[in-house]
């Protein structure tokens, strides 16, 4: 292409014919240009919105349609900082989503503008599946375990937790469950799901630390979401969710117009406020997802229920490998009761499972419990001075090498794969008593 052709090239006309909706923002995020496909897709005229800023409106659910569309076209902060980003946005007033590619256009000194290309994600069809009866029976057996049982041993905190869970099941609103690691937050979320109206749909636990963001986005908002028809989604480690997904979730939870969007239950290991302050958790998402907050007490505050938990875990261990243990000896039980259980139910399960494997009789004896439990001190509290330990290992290895080589320094150094002067220095440091 020669220079005159380049000068006469009309980029607007070029984009006008593109089938995909395209728009261009200046660095103040104001609309400079949008093609016909964008006008058709949004229902807005370029002439009406030219110069309008595309910014996200935090917390606002009742925007004018034009405002809502401009907010949906707002670039994420990473794009403003020069990084290409892909975002999924809810189409205002519709159940569909847009996937927008934001491409920053960098000038010699600063950002010139941002090009946005929209891909309309087609609404997936409703699920059409049925499970074989055998699998349905298996599912029924699984879900029957998630029941809230109020026993006489229940502490007031546990009774309150159960009451809140029942209330949550009736309300069908997003819930936050707060509790230390291993306290059974997922179990409670499953129990709430089973009590609620969505129990005939699947329950899924998504751990943001373990699923790549793109795949998680696809399961929550993409074409997979409606096919799967999940009833309840339990989100573990919400602070690890990418900002983009947190925004989308906040939007989806606020909109409430899509009845097929799964119910969201969020599990927090720590106080959510700390995560918000650290910038990991979006405040909008947190508020949208915590219409009700349930606190799960740690195991040390519900030791009266210990016997019941031990019984369940002995049963679970039997599923993994048949064992003789059916109960716990009194002495061992007292030890279990006296331990503070910093790892909560998860730690108790590991201890019981290990003890079941070691048990020689039909009862778990004190000898079957881990040593640290009998000592009454946590392994983490024992000091492990690394330098001292390494020096001890080094001293032993040098002594061994000297013995094997009958005190020949050169051969001992070769054996240890170190230089001879270094060996001599170490021998000197250790007082030459190696020889």
């Amino acid at each position, binding site marked *: 292409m020669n220079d005159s052709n380049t000068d006469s090239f009309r980029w607007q006309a070029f984009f006008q014919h593109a089938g995909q909706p395209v728009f261009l923002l200046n660095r103040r995020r104001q609309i400079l240009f949008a093609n016909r496909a964008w006008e058709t897709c949004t229902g807005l005229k370029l002439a009406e919105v030219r110069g309008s800023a595309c910014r996200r409106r935090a917390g606002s659910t009742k925007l004018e349609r034009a405002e809502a569309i401009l907010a949906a076209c707002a670039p994420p902060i990473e794009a403003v900082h020069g990084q290409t980003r892909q975002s999924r946005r809810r189409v205002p007033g519709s159940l569909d989503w847009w996937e927008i590619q934001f491409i920053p256009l960098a000038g010699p000194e600063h950002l010139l503008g941002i090009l946005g290309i929209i891909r309309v994600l087609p609404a997936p069809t409703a699920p059409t*599946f049925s499970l074989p009866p055998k699998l349905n029976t298996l599912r029924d057996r699984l879900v029957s375990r998630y029941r809230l049982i109020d026993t006489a041993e229940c502490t007031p905190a546990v009774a309150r937790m159960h009451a809140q869970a029942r209330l949550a099941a009736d309300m069908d609103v997003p819930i936050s469950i707060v509790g230390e690691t291993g306290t059974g937050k997922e179990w409670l979320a499953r129990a709430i799901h089973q009590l609620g109206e969505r129990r005939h749909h699947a329950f*899924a636990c998504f751990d943001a630390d373990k699923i790549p963001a793109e795949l998680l986005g696809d399961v929550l908002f993409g074409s997979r979401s409606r096919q799967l028809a999940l009833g309840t989604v339990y989100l573990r480690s919400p602070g690890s969710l990418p900002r983009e997904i947190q925004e989308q979730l906040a939007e989806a939870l606020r909109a409430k117009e899509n009845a097929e969007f799964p119910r969201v239950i969020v599990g927090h290991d720590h106080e959510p406020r700390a995560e918000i302050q650290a910038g990991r958790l979006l405040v909008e998402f947190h508020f949208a997802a915590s219409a009700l907050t349930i606190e799960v007490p740690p195991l040390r505050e519900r030791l009266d229920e210990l016997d019941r938990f031990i019984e369940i875990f002995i049963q679970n261990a039997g599923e993994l490998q048949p064992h003789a243990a059916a109960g716990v000896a009194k002495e061992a039980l007292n030890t279990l009761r006296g331990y503070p259980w910093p790892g909560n139910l998860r730690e108790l399960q590991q201890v019981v499972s290990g003890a079941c494997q070691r048990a020689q009789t039909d009862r778990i004896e004190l000898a079957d419990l881990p040593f640290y439990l009998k000592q009454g001190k946590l392994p983490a509290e024992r000091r492990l001075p690394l330098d001292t330990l390494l020096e001890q290992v080094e001293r032993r290895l040098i002594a061994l090498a000297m013995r094997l080589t009958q005190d020949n320094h050169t051969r001992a150094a070769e054996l240890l794969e170190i230089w001879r002067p270094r060996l001599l220095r170490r021998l000197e440091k250790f007082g030459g008593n190696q020889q």
Partner: protein
Amino acid sequence: MQQTQILTYGLTGIASERLRELATARRIWLRETNQTAACQNLLQSAPTLLIVQLGRDLERELALVGIAHDCVPRAAIVVIGETDSAGLAGLAWEFGATYALFPPTPVERLNEIVNFMLRERTP
């Protein structure tokens, strides 16, 4: 720290085949079985990751996922399905899968998923 261990179950051995290179490169202990009972026994060694490829005996295989979820709560579980069955994928999630890798998501993404799940555990 405990040795990172991946346990795979499947009749065709697709998962272990795909992960062999990654396991060697990252010094991960890869164990493979094609029997649900053997897999259940191997769960006692508390693997970091369990990969279950669904095959002929769905009932036993899903039960295995449920047992792994209950008895080895720290283990991540990936369930691989060969057919595009939303019902089955939903059931895999329900039984405790950390991720259900079903079509149209290609099985080629398994390495990416495993890498992501183990990113903080191995060099």
